[in-house]
């Protein structure tokens, strides 16, 4: 999404969405997660396009409602439409630097960039978010939510979660 050429109205919508947080990861804005794929304004109507991280993500309906409310609250548009599509599918490289920092702050290791994740090695090398050691073990590619994997740090002896790569 190219926000540099945004009109004033598109910019205002984007700023409102920067306040909408992922319900499962407090402190991570949906704009930094990279799931807002298009903002269009036509006359007095606003269209916001979202895309899910995983197709079965149960938080999506809640996020749609939160986006609708945030844009309606601007009181600039007669009509606000929020739509989820796969036109511009999400991958973990869409997470911004700010988003990666928010993941780490939440105790989740950010995903490696441009990863070929069918190789188990990528997940095995996941650094610990607490002590930064790479001496870790993958416990399972599935975790508490669809986007997380489970690991154990052999250095600081703590279980931790990673945000797993999706390309």
């Amino acid at each position, binding site marked *: 999404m190219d926000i540099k050429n945004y009109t004033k109205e598109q910019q205002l919508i984007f700023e409102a969405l920067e306040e909408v947080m992922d319900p499962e990861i407090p402190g991570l804005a949906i704009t930094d997660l990279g799931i807002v794929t298009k903002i269009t304004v036509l006359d007095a109507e606003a269209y916001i396009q979202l895309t899910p991280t995983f197709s*079965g993500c149960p938080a999506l309906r809640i996020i749609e409602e939160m986006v609708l409310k945030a844009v309606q609250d601007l009181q600039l548009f007669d009509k606000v439409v929020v739509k989820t*599509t796969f036109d511009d599918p999400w991958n973990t490289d869409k997470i911004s630097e700010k988003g990666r920092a928010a993941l780490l702050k939440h105790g989740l290791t950010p995903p490696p960039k441009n990863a070929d994740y069918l190789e188990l090695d990528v997940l095995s090398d996941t650094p610990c978010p607490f002590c930064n050691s790479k001496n870790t073990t993958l416990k399972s590619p*599935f975790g508490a939510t669809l986007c997380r994997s489970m690991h154990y740090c052999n250095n600081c002896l703590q279980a931790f979660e990673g945000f797993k790569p999706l390309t």
Partner: protein
Amino acid sequence: MNIEQKQLDALKNLLYKMADDQLILGHRNSEWTGFGPVLEEDIAFSSMAQDKIGQAYQLYSILNELGESEPDTVAFTRNAQQFHCCEYVTMPIGEYDFSLVRHFFFDNAELLRIDSLINTTFDPLSLLARKFKGELKYHVLHANTWIKQLANGNAESKKRIQDTINASFGLALGIFEPSDDENSLIDTGFFIGEKALQSKWLAIITPFLNSCDLSLPNIDDTKPVYGGRKGNFSQYLQPMLTEMTEVYAIDPSAEW
């Protein structure tokens, strides 16, 4: 896009086959929630259930745009004869070896099916296929990791995996039951066809199993379990559907 009626019907049939496979196997996987042999496996099967039911929802949504009923109506109001999944996914979860081998056979097949659809000329499906591929790679990674681990475990774990492979191979071949109408999809570049998929699948799983010192039974001596794609199931699907739709059936008009 201008699709002829015959192709449209064949396309819908393909989408139903895929969506029903995902919904039914997703539901079966969810039966492991709280019962996995170790906590990580409990979570893995539950997560894969969530992925699969989410993928089924997206496929039913495409069908809805092609004129079929709403996803919830399609999922919760049909009886067994109206489903298009393969017999294999309807089977009860059994013991962990049965569920694990099914997961291995099915998800390797599904990843290849999805991969082949990335270049389909039907755009909505192509977009979904790109998305599903990333998710299914984790399912295959998980299945292959555990098959390998148990093949290299002890004599009992290896024997149980090999025995289950032998007993399940005919069911797994049923995934690729051809449909009468699929030629119209093959001719127009929508889909490569079940026969071609089965060949690709064998070419992937045979060397993998051999590398784990496991083997497939002789395919010429194995009778594929067909029927599911045409709505002919054994005794397992209807009781599962009755349980799955129990709450919905109390008040189908309820707002959630």
